[in-house]
């Protein structure tokens, strides 16, 4: 059957609690697929580029839902929809950066169905890979994007290692900026991973975008109060305002005394396989006054070390400008 035909059949499981879901994942291992809102998954199935035997629908599991204010910030269940994240009063009061990033994902219909967990765990959007080609990320031994004839306008500036795909998620950059923690469960128990270490590049594992193993479920995201109420900035530049993924996006949180920058976290998406925390920029501007000189220094250090491909040189000035604004206009 040609590509683009209907989905291949699979077994659909709808466990009502976490324990059942985990034992199903244990049972089917690499042949299983976790389904949340399906906005990434169903495309893979329709294109038949992924053909799991058992699809485990996480939608009925209450333990993965809900937004709770805790003593130390906010905990958001992985199954919370992007619409809920974007419109939730507590999130927007404490961390408007996250609410805003969620509101910039895809389209209204997609945000109504897509979940925060799915947005963080979604796979690369490289069109060669999604077309079903046997590239490195798909287990083959070639990169179609990073080849003389490859179209790589949307690919990376940093961290290339055979694969040059970028992180597609708008919420991921916001959560790395906010120093969030990912709560992951498997049959052996629960663990907490800093958002910054949750996403992995091709140098760590070229077939995955996150540390999650087949038996792992992302349960929730904890955002500590550290940056609640801080100054913030989010901007996404894409070809169209609806649907399109970021060419580059930026998220920052800043603490000031007068106009001196006391503390800052700043992260760019669309430039590397993982959300790129700009630690050099952070170090350069900490303790400085917010003025043109600081913005210029920040912009220059943001793009230092970039290795553009044939068609994505434009991302360098784009990234520099976004970083400048993310510090100036926060």
């Amino acid at each position: 059957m040609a590509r683009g035909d209907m989905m291949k059949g699979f077994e659909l499981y709808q466990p009502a609690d976490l324990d059942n879901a985990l034992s199903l994942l244990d049972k089917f291992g690499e042949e299983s697929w976790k389904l949340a809102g399906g906005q990434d998954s169903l495309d893979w199935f329709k294109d038949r580029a992924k053909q799991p035997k058992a699809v485990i629908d996480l939608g009925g599991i209450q333990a993965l839902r809900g937004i709770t204010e805790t003593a130390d910030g906010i905990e958001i269940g992985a199954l919370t929809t992007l619409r809920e994240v974007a419109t939730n009063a507590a999130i927007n009061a404490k961390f408007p950066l996250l609410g805003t990033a969620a509101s910039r994902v895809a389209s209204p219909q997609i945000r109504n169905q897509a979940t925060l967990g799915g947005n963080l765990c979604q796979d690369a959007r490289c069109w060669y890979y999604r077309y079903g080609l046997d590239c490195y990320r798909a287990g083959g031994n070639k990169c179609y994007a990073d080849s003389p004839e490859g179209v790589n306008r949307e690919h990376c500036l940093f961290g290339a290692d055979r694969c040059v795909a970028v992180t597609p998620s708008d919420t991921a950059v916001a959560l790395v900026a906010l120093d969030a923690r990912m709560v992951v469960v498997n049959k052996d128990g629960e663990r907490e991973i800093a958002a910054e270490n949750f996403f992995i590049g091709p140098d760590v594992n070229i077939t995955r975008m996150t540390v999650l193993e087949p038996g792992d479920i992302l349960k929730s995201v904890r955002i500590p109060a550290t940056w609640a109420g801080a100054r913030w900035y989010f901007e996404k530049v894409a070809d169209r305002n609806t649907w399109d993924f970021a060419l580059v996006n930026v998220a920052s949180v800043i603490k000031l005394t007068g106009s001196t920058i006391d503390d800052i976290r700043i992260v760019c998406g669309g430039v590397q396989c993982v959300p790129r925390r700009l630690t050099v920029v952070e170090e350069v501007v900490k303790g400085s006054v917010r003025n043109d000189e600081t913005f210029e220094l920040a912009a220059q250090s943001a793009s230092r070390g970039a290795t553009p491909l044939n068609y994505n040189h434009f991302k360098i000035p784009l990234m520099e400008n976004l970083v400048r604004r993310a510090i100036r206009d926060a």
Partner: protein
Amino acid sequence: MSDDMNNSGPYSASPTAVSTRSRTSRRNFIKGVIASGATVSAGGYLMTMAGCSSDSGDGGSASAPAPGTVERMLVLNVNGERRTVDVLPQETLAMTLRYKLSLTGTKLGCDRGECGACTVLIDDVAYNACSVLTHTLRGRNVMTIEGLAAADGSLHPVQQAFIDELGPQCGFCTPGQVMSAVALLKENPRPSRQQAREAMAGNLCRCGAYDNYLNAVMRAARGA
């Protein structure tokens, strides 16, 4: 209700339908669809079977559901009616509506979440029917374009406003546009033009009739 998600726990083997369903041939399946009142348009015939029949090509799983998997028969609430329908695990709502329930007002444009032609309401919120598995909708209320007009045939105010403002050109995107507008006005009966623009942003129109549609949404809001 044996097909209710709350009752059929994760490991409940389907008590009914297994034996009959397991030997359903493609021919009987088609007969069954026709007998149950669904009409199958000639053009969509093969596609219908590719998308909805478990034993076409390599598209099928084993015919008998594995223990613990979903029960294929389910009851859907569509446009205020309870409809019993046989749904494959991998079937999207758009497929079920169009090819099982004959509700062809819901259009399939891209089948990838990129156009909004398939927009329907689920519990009053807009979703792309091409991108939701029907099996995840047990117990929820689906509303399609066919369910908007009153029993006496008078149009929903949004439909009327779309006509009054000459909204559609070719009309292919129109059902989706109407459903997005209805969802918006349920949530926010007096939107600003900018709010309406944002709410309609998930519906593409190849004819470019966006301004007419926006005018129609604002007219419906004034009248609502």
